[in-house]
């Protein structure tokens, strides 16, 4: 080892340091985009002070990008994609590209934007800007929203508020509820949930499964219509939760090591639970101030709605309301039996088939 012990050597070392730094900096600059059947492109989109990370992975040469809008709110998407939690890498991403982005306030949280910019309205703008970026950066490519749960709620509002300047070509709602815990939609929300419980009861009684318990639940449902009080809501939960299907994506210790040490994630920034809770509360508060009940007619994009048999967060009855009221003339409604809220994990083959069928139908 040669150690500099004179000022001259120190100056040389400084030069080497600067050259090394310049090399690293230049390495961070990518060339113009090229489409590929197995792309893995990473970007940051600056929107009102925040640098939103975007990962585009899969078949960009298909000229179709599914823009995944994460649920939660409060779940980052990029780490979710890096560990391939939904297991799309070897099926959906072979057919199309999937773009994942971290919603403002989650993930690495880079930039100068403050909490005042964490709003449901800003989330719609971020979604719009990311979609615009994809359209512009991958010329001639269709951008299709692929929205799960809260991501679908956000997308419904985006599709209405930005209807005159949409940057997306179609919409896939994966188990996306439109009601929430706000008072303005409570009647509709608990009406759907009441009907869901009755359907569950009938289903299990007909299947001769745990008949006594489901008969009791049915009797309770008949004498508790409408569901209005906290006590009734809790009881409803007790009845439906045992029937819910929640397939675990199977996160292993290798996934944690990968995210912690071999990914762009700064886990300290990502796991700031208190801040994440505050961000979640702000976004939910914004969502709860609105109702989509009268607005679905304004959504006219080609749309695929997915509903699952045992989804207690977006019951079939709630998705059927959207199906009946949406303004789209190009509409596909897919129902998955024996599946829950994470239908892409519960029924991966059927989910894949549903998406492909819808996307291919866009060209007809």
């Amino acid at each position, binding site marked *: 080892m040669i150690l500099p012990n004179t000022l001259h050597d120190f100056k040389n070392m400084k030069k080497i340091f600067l050259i090394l*730094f310049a090399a690293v900096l230049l390495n961070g600059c990518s060339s113009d985009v090229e489409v590929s059947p197995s792309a893995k492109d990473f970007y940051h989109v600056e929107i009102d002070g925040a640098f939103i990370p975007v990962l585009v992975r899969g078949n960009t040469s298909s000229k179709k990008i599914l823009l995944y809008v994460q649920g939660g709110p409060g779940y980052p998407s990029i780490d979710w994609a890096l560990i391939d939690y939904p297991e799309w890498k070897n099926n959906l991403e072979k057919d199309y590209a999937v773009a994942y982005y971290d919603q403002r306030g989650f993930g690495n949280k*880079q930039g*100068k934007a403050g909490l005042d910019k964490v709003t449901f309205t800003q989330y719609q703008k971020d979604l719009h800007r990311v979609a615009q970026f994809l359209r512009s950066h991958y010329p001639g490519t269709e951008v299709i929203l692929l929205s799960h749960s809260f991501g679908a709620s956000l997308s419904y509002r985006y599709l209405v508020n930005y209807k005159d300047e949409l940057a997306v070509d179609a919409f896939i709602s994966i188990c996306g509820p439109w009601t929430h815990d706000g008072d303005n939609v409570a009647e509709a929300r608990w009406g759907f949930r009441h009907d869901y419980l009755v359907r569950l009861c009938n289903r299990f009684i007909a299947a001769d499964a745990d008949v006594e318990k489901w008969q009791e639940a049915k009797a309770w449902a008949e004498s508790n219509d409408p569901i209005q009080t906290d006590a009734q809501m809790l009881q409803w939960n007790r009845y439906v939760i045992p029937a819910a299907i929640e397939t675990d994506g199977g996160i292993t210790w290798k996934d944690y090591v990968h995210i912690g040490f071999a990914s762009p994630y700064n*886990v300290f920034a990502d796991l700031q639970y208190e801040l994440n809770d505050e961000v979640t509360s702000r976004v939910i508060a914004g969502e709860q101030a609105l109702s989509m009940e009268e607005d679905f007619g304004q959504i006219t994009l080609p749309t695929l709605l997915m509903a699952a048999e045992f989804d207690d967060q977006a019951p079939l009855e709630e998705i059927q309301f959207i199906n009946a009221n949406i303004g789209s003339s190009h509409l596909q409604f897919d129902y998955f039996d024996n599946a829950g809220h994470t239908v892409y994990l519960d029924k991966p083959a059927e989910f894949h088939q549903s998406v492909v069928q819808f996307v291919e139908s866009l060209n007809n």
Partner: protein
Amino acid sequence: MKHLFLLVLLTCCAFYCSFSQGGKPFFTATYEGGMITHPGAGVSAGTELFAHGKIHLDVGVKAAFYSHKNYRTAVYLLPFASLWLKNEDKLWYGVNYGFGIQRTFIPHSYTVNESGGAERLRFAGTISRLSGVGILLSGRTKYDGCRWVINPQLLQNPSGISKKEKYFVLGMGIIKSIQ
């Protein structure tokens, strides 16, 4: 800029005090691994400000960077103070604290103009204050006046949505005394 000026002034004062009392200067060269695997490097120069028995107080200034191609490259200047327990011919233990300034460069950055077009941003990133707290461990090498050092450090900067954003940097390298 005022912040940077203040840092430079304080660092100069510390160096002046140390040299006027015959303090021993040193410099370090380290690998600075952000989250251990986001590679970087750093150099620092410092001097001993105070010594009493085994307890030594050093001051110095570190210039360093770390980089991840899909996260950011951060360059920082961190004036620091290190409190050491120096056991002759054995391991040295210490803690360090620094307060400085950081510039981040966020790679592959774009903005979207009003007509919906994507525009590449060059040198996108932020400038922010930065503090760092860490522990130090140092041992002898076979080279005279030269010791290895390990310095895991938690950096914290107050910018962005993530106020007090923390970032782990593992420093590993050498300290060389200048006689």
